[in-house]
């Protein structure tokens, strides 16, 4: 079976790394909440930040910002606060997204949506409460051209005091 050993990168990736923005490793992209490939929406008053928490805050000194952010769940229809991580290096090959679940303020059953295959969508609920400073796989089977990960605060589960954590997303292939 042919094997290839190479480095995937781009000038944009190199620039991103040089400015300590989301890291690119070969076959792996880690996108930080608050980083250049991350967009948050919704009332700013509802966003909360835990400095020194999450993957960038607790483990990875090379990425920033060094925090995790969260908001309370919304039990009504539709998202009030939400966020999007855009993968700038999506490839036409099976890709796997993992979410880092922080130790604190991650107690909701959160609804992740992945955009892949040039415009298809894959949605899954992830119970964040059983996990603590660790990676959780969002898609157990590969999705090609996985270019966007979306997470909102809407949930039909739990109570209004549950918190949805928005931290790093890692995409591997």
């Amino acid at each position, binding site marked *: *079976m*042919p*094997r*290839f*050993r*190479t*480095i*995937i*990168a*781009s*000038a*944009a990736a*190199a620039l991103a*790394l*040089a400015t300590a923005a989301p*890291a690119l*490793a*070969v*076959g*792996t992209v*880690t996108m930080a909440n608050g980083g250049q490939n991350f967009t948050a929406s919704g009332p700013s008053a509802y966003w909360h930040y835990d400095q020194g928490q999450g993957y960038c805050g607790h*483990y990875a000194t*090379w990425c920033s910002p060094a925090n995790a952010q969260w908001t309370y769940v919304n039990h009504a229809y539709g998202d009030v606060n939400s966020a999007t991580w855009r993968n700038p290096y999506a*490839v*036409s*090959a*099976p890709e*796997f997204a993992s979410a880092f679940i922080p*130790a604190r303020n991650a*107690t909701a*059953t959160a609804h*992740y949506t992945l955009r892949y*295959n*040039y*415009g*298809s*969508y894959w*949605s899954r*609920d*992830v*119970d964040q*409460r*059983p*996990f*603590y*400073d*660790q*990676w*959780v*796989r969002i*898609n*157990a*089977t*590969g*999705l*090609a051209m996985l270019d966007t990960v979306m997470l909102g605060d809407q949930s039909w*589960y*739990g109570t209004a005091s549950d918190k949805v954590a928005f931290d790093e997303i890692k995409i*591997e*292939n």
Partner: protein
Amino acid sequence: MRSPKILFALGMLAAAGVAATALAAHAERRAIPVAEAVRAMFADLETAAKREQARGCPDSGASGDGPCAAARAKLDAMHDDAVNAADAAIARPATERAAAIAAIRAFRTNDWLEVDYRSTSPNPYKDGEEKIEIYADDKGFEYWIDPARDVLVQAGPGAGLHPAPRKARPDARLPVPELRSRALAILERQMPGFGKRKSSLHPLEDHKDKLVYFFRWDDFSQPAKESEMPPFVQVALYADGELASYTDTLTR
């Protein structure tokens, strides 16, 4: 399957010049075994997708059952075929995966647990080429197995498999020492000798809203790679003692 990207990327990397040193800090070399047939399937998928986009077909989320729906269904079928073929190209034969299923059943102490293979994919805790096999049981739990050792790396509610979060009844709550004892029993079963080994690890106990209790031991004896976490083991138990999740990145 990544060759067009690779060629493009290598060219761009050469042009990056100044930033190459910084890049090296986070780049990982990967060997990617890909059958030519699989590569062709993804190339065909890309070509078909670009053709539909040129035709003006929007995302499935926007189009619903509009005129592009048939094209989207075809693209999705091509996608699933390609992904399945790619997984088949890297997965161990089913006969070799029997040891992984046995490891999961031993962990759950249930010889009859229904366990299905899902995929083989990169291990998010490791840089490089280390893989995990993902399995799911009929209770909504997902299991990650290190196929090189048939060792359980992680277990917990799988995405989309266990949507209703579990809570212990108040009258079923166990005291923390009992939960700690149960966590250690699980670890001793998974990692014989853990009782002696844990003295060299950094212990941590915490909980989330007193609903899930975490018993964790981190290994800080060696500096972790920049993009990896220090190895750790963790048992998470619901307040009534039921398993919430398990992770072992210590066992090598």
